[in-house]
């Protein structure tokens, strides 16, 4: 090494810094991952068990955290049928596979990630666009089975294409959306208006 070069600008010094910094940051990431995984496993406080679709889900302002958080309420089974944990997981999983197979993320965002051509689906279960809680399940089924005929694009001209979703598939997608709306997303989306109980 050229002795005229100060240690802090030498190649060998920065090589060591690069190795140690990278290794340290990676170890911290692994440690944080080990802490995070149990906290986002289905059945945890932040990410409820799939059987949460048997319950009423709200999204209310929390004074302590200063943003809206999901509130799990009384029994309110999806399509009027109580499901066991296994049945609920199977239904939600089928719904998620449908959203992947139909490439929903090609237009929508889920938890804010995806494309920006159509509305975010994170809290779509709670959206006032379904008019009222009483009409919601039926409205969602009809919409998913024939989106162009039930399009509500508010003058944008944008419509969801008909992806030939059957009634059973629509129910599975709705189960997945209902479960997703129960995830604690640290207040995202902000300032969300929740659907009314009655029209």
């Amino acid at each position, binding site marked *: 090494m050229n002795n005229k070069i100060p240690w802090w600008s030498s190649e060998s010094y920065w090589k060591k810094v*690069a190795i140690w910094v990278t290794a340290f940051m990676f170890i911290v990431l692994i440690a944080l*991952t080990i802490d995070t995984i149990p906290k986002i496993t289905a059945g945890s406080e932040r990410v409820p068990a799939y059987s949460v679709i048997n319950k009423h889900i709200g999204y209310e302002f929390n004074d302590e955290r200063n943003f809206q958080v999901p509130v799990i309420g009384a029994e309110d089974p999806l399509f009027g049928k109580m499901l066991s944990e296994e049945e609920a997981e199977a239904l939600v999983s089928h719904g998620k*596979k449908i959203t992947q197979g139909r490439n929903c993320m090609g237009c929508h965002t889920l938890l804010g*990630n995806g494309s920006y051509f159509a509305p975010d689906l994170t809290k779509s279960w709670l959206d006032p*666009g379904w008019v009222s809680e009483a009409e919601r399940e039926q409205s969602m089924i009809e919409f998913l089975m024939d989106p162009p005929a039930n399009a509500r694009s508010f003058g944008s001209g944008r419509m969801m294409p008909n992806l030939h979703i059957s009634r059973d598939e629509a129910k599975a997608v709705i189960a997945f959306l209902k479960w997703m709306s129960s*995830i604690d997303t640290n207040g995202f989306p902000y300032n969300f208006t929740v659907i009314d109980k009655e029209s």
Partner: protein
Amino acid sequence: MNINHLNGGQQLAVKYYIVAMVLFGAQILFGLLSGMQYLYPELLFGILDFNVTRTVHINAMIVWMLYGFIGSVYWLLEEESETEVVGLKLGILGFWVLTSAVTVVVLVFLLVQTGPGDDFTRWFVNEGREYIEAPRWADIGIVICMLIFFYNVSATFMKGKWSGISGVLTLDLVALAGIYIAGMFYTPNISMDQYWWWWVIHLWVEATWEVLVGCLMAWGLMKVLKVDRKIVTTWLYIEVALMFGSGILGLGHHYFWIGTPEYWLTIGGFFSALEPIPLVAMVVHAIYDSGVRHMKGNNNPAFAWLIAHAFGNFFGAGVWGFMHTLPQINLYTHGTQWSASHGHLAFFGAYATIIIAMIYIAVPYIRGQEGISSNLPDGGWKWKWSLGLLNMGVVGMTVALLISGYEQSFIERAVGGSTWLGYFTAQVHPWFVQGMEWRMIFGVMTAAGIVLLLWDLLTIGKEPVSSQKVQTEAA
């Protein structure tokens, strides 16, 4: 095209570069279609819906950039290691396997498009996860091809000689290939899904890809400006320390809103805010070396694109990323046209530019020359205009999308309560629509730049330099 005078690695690199440029064209074509569908939603409705055009747009981009990187590494491999590529035939086989797989995947995206909600769809049609929509069989094929590539790179350096650049490059490729595997599993839990999905996306584009282009930049500066190896290697180590020092935990800025604990707001916000620092270092490094060499190189187009890379990376990835990385603003901008604005300038500025620079470095050698004359017979108007059109086009799209993004985050998110009605209220607002119109105009400008770029790459250096110009240059 006769390329027998090139070394084996360079001959293989040319194959990768050709496919990269074809896919670059495809990316822009499908980008134009996606942009048009914002303005004319009935365009190709039910035939090639937005989810198809957009999927092809972003996947063509990821794949052409990978091709550009692999091509660039094969181009420099024999020169840097001072020996022949160890498994050249295997490398050629890998190229054809990868290219066949990419062709099949694109055809399935276009012709089959979607499938039922079962495992067959995820394995053979579409995985439905942004950027890594490629079905699982293709994932496995990509990993195998990357392993062949990694074997060729590491074994060739082991047989020949190591350098600072090759050491960083090889270790980076281990991380790059390993991280891809984090995305190859299914879970019904979308929070868990996105946790690992971000390992692939973020740790590629905001960590390992950045280090890879740092290696290419170091090599490119040595090649074009004859910068001293010791200087570029020291800078490379500094960049690696800063890049991984900020970028690895910067991953946390994707963990604000997906169900992950609140501590990620602090960790992600802090470390991702530091991510522009290594990009500043790259700009300083490139500009300093250019000044020291009095901007004199043997290849002006490559030099111009290297400088475009330094600034594009800093503004696109650094400034545009920083603008909405803190959770206090990201709450309103996450998943809006802000992200699209950042994505356009970052991918172009950080990655497209350096690959184009590397191809320009290769072009004179392909034509049996050492460099590109600064006195080209046509004045070099094609490369100059394509440089200008591409950069202005992408910057124009970025600004237009940002204006739409501002409007969307205010009207949909802050005022409209983020509902479907809020979303569409923002989408039909004149400010949003005007942004989309300007994006389209600049998109066409970008497309014109690509046509010129491809024309130039196919022709530059082919025409003999007139004797008068040679004399002028010599003088």
